[in-house]
């Protein structure tokens, strides 16, 4: 799997957020997107995931795939996408079934394993309304390993995590890269995954 972006620009609310952004990532490579608040980091990730239209430019995956781009990406944004009345297990199991591709439907045991990997085994059966901010975040992140997708798009992934969970997440990213996956992360905190850096300038200055 390889991602190539050429001359991307995105418009939001009638204003060009960034323009002429390009990068190419081969299997096992990662990219860290940095920049001040409002520079367009989240915008870029959403555009890559296919959740925002491009004003110009193109994003290509190779080997070329006929399915929409969203099917190759895991997008973990600012919102956790957890239903407060469902338990952590139910939430993750649902997304695992929804996001599964190529007939690889994750089993309950795989979902349990994903939750356990993020240290949520003991509270898997608690409604998400009862979870703390970091616990919710971890439940959202456990989607990453419950279903395999080659490209991870992570928006400020370390937010709300305690140091133990930060280590776990970094380990997961390393493992994903080693297996030939791709990680693109937006972050303010340093993210030691040996990634290339794409520094967005603030839109005002641009």
């Amino acid at each position: 799997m390889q991602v190539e972006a050429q001359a991307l620009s995105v418009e939001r609310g009638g204003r060009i957020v960034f323009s002429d952004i390009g990068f190419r990532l081969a299997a096992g490579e990662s990219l860290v997107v940095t920049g001040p608040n409002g520079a367009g980091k989240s915008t870029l990730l959403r555009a890559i995931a296919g959740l925002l239209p491009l004003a110009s430019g193109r994003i290509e995956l190779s080997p070329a795939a006929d399915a929409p781009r969203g099917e190759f990406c895991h997008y973990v944004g600012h919102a956790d996408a957890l239903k407060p009345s469902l338990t952590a297990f139910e939430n993750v199991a649902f997304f695992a079934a929804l996001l599964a591709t190529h007939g690889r439907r994750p089993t309950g045991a795989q979902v349990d394993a994903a939750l356990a990997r993020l240290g949520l085994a003991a509270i898997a059966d608690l409604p998400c309304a009862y979870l703390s901010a970091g616990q919710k975040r971890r439940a959202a992140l456990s989607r990453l390993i419950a279903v395999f997708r080659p490209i991870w798009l992570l928006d400020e992934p370390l937010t709300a995590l305690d140091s133990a969970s930060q280590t776990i997440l970094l380990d997961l990213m390393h493992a994903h890269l080693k297996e030939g996956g791709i990680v693109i992360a937006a972050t303010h905190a340093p993210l030691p995954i040996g990634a290339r850096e794409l520094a967005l300038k603030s839109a005002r200055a641009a």
Partner: protein
Amino acid sequence: MKETLPSALFALLTRDLTIGRRIGGAASLGIVFFLCLVAITPFAIGPDLALLSRIGPAILWIAALLATLLGLDRLFQAEAEDGSLDLLLSSSAPLELIVLVKCLAHWLLTGLPLVVASPLFGLMLGLDTHALAGVFVSLLVGTPALTLIGAIGAALTVSLRRGGLLLAILILPLSIPVLIFGVAAASRAAGFAMPFLILCGLALMGLALAPFAAAAALRHSIE
């Protein structure tokens, strides 16, 4: 790629039904709400049983319409607010089918219980057996159509913070035909078969069009 499609849709259906059940048993609540409306109307109109039984089918239909509308504005808005919509859009299941499944879940939770309970409420309004059957059958066909039409409005308003009233305004004109033929079939004013067939036609049309319209609206409102 497609082997996972049934299981993805089934997971969505189960999830929505579970949420509906957890959050205060939407099914039973729907019935009680219906009951309240039916009780209010005679009060507003006065205790004239002959008049009541004449407009009974209309009251039941209006109650069904409003009960359907009341929860509908959050159908996609809740998904958009918490970020779930992004993930629904990244699924390999076609968005049209996702919309359809969400509508099915909504109908099973609010529409179906109303249909099942309608004969009882009809009795309270003094309808005779014929009218009861007419109301039951016409609601059975008509309420899914109302849900589907409502889903278009829900999708259109998904990016607005409070779509409730706007949704109603977009939806009520579209649902007027359903209402007219539903009530006509139920009250047999113009015979049963003719308006009922038209009602079925409307429902089928809703089934064929609404998922596409709603999915298109959702794709455009995401940002």
